[in-house]
């Protein structure tokens, strides 16, 4: 069943695959993000209570859900690296961690900027905000562990264990607003049944969300490529690449 994946365990094959993937992903990301953001920030109707402040939603919600999504992807990579000892899975986890940390920070900062005028406070220690802050610390811990060891295999193992321990935080973030009473509101888009938003507000959100997801894919691809090169710098195929580039 998984036979078709086996060639990609080879760093050289994976490197050339990301090369082919990148132009497409970048073009699509640019198209979706430019349409989505212009539509969302300029043309979508303002909310009846919040006015234009609500537009921060179009950055905050994609950033927050991607911060969880990237963590989950990183956990899957860590799991397969621990069980099957795939070196490339470690490289991909190391590539994802800083991107996830950046998106978590964006979610926290945009949330605070919205919270001040709307709620009346920058920060409150409710379940949703606190668990998202813990996610940021988990990312920072994973990044630190990836850089703490000279030996990349050892580093990947240590970071992978922390990643897997921390994965329990993901459902807590997601369901915190349902399990406990919080100041943070419940889900608008990702709930069963009808989203609590009119369609002319929802469409730009969907396009923005796809755009941000593609942007994440592009950044992770770029970082993954670098990780592969850095970890295989003594291999002949990398040396050939460098020679070709220099000549």
């Amino acid at each position: 069943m998984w036979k078709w994946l086996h060639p990609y365990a080879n760093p050289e094959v994976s490197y050339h695959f990301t090369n082919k993937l990148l132009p497409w992903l970048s073009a699509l990301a640019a198209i979706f993000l430019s349409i989505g953001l212009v539509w969302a920030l300029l043309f979508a109707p303002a909310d009846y209570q919040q006015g234009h402040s609500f537009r921060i939603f179009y950055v905050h919600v994609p950033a927050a859900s991607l911060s969880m999504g990237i963590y989950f992807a990183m956990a899957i990579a860590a799991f397969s690296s621990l069980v099957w000892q795939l070196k490339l899975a470690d490289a991909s986890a190391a590539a994802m961690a800083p991107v996830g940390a950046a998106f978590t920070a964006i979610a926290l900062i945009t949330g605070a900027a919205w919270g001040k005028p709307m709620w009346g406070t920058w920060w409150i220690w409710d379940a949703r905000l606190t668990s998202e802050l813990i996610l940021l610390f988990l990312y920072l811990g994973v990044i630190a562990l990836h850089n703490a060891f000279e030996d990349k295999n050892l580093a990947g193992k240590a970071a992978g264990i922390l990643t897997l321990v921390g994965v329990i935080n993901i459902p807590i973030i997601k369901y915190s607003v349902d399990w406990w009473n919080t100041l943070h509101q419940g889900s608008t888009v990702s709930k069963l049944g009808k989203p609590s938003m009119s369609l002319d507000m929802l469409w730009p959100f969907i396009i923005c969300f796809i755009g941000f997801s593609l942007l994440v894919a592009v950044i992770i691809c770029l970082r993954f490529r670098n990780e592969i090169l850095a970890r295989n710098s003594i291999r002949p195929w990398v040396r050939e690449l460098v020679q070709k580039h220099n000549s």
Partner: protein
Amino acid sequence: MNPRRKKRLAIVGSVLIGISAVAGLVLYALSQNIDLFFTPSEITQGKKETGLKPSLGQRIRIGGLVVPGSVKRDPESLKVSFKLSDMTMPIVFKDSDITITVYYDGILPDLFREGQGIVANGRLAEHPPTGLSIEASEVLAKHDENYMPAELAEAAGKKHEKATYTDKQLESKKSSGY
């Protein structure tokens, strides 16, 4: 799968299950403390599962909906009082609802209005005419998950006006030393 991988899979799997079980139990044990606020009925009758009830003079947070028609603002100062009732879906206000009165001296957040969800932080006290009440030092607006363009909201009979303040009201706050 070869035996070594199978063994690693078993170790990683059982560690994951163990961690989830521990986290689940801890969160279950802490669930009352993770709640950000008490609802008005929890203040009068105690929490549903544990019967935990805040005592007079305790600093607590209260969360509820502002009862329409209950907002009283002092024309001379920033003092305001309003009643909160439990947040229930769908939103209906009845005379039989348990309410708690909140007294506050300060500027209300932009989203404050009748029917809006509010979280107030303050001291639980007993005021003779209204019974249990909160002397709030902070009032936060709890936004719901609904977003609506202005035209649609008007058609549905909803509108939102920010609370406005006169210079005199704002002056009173400064002179009272805040």
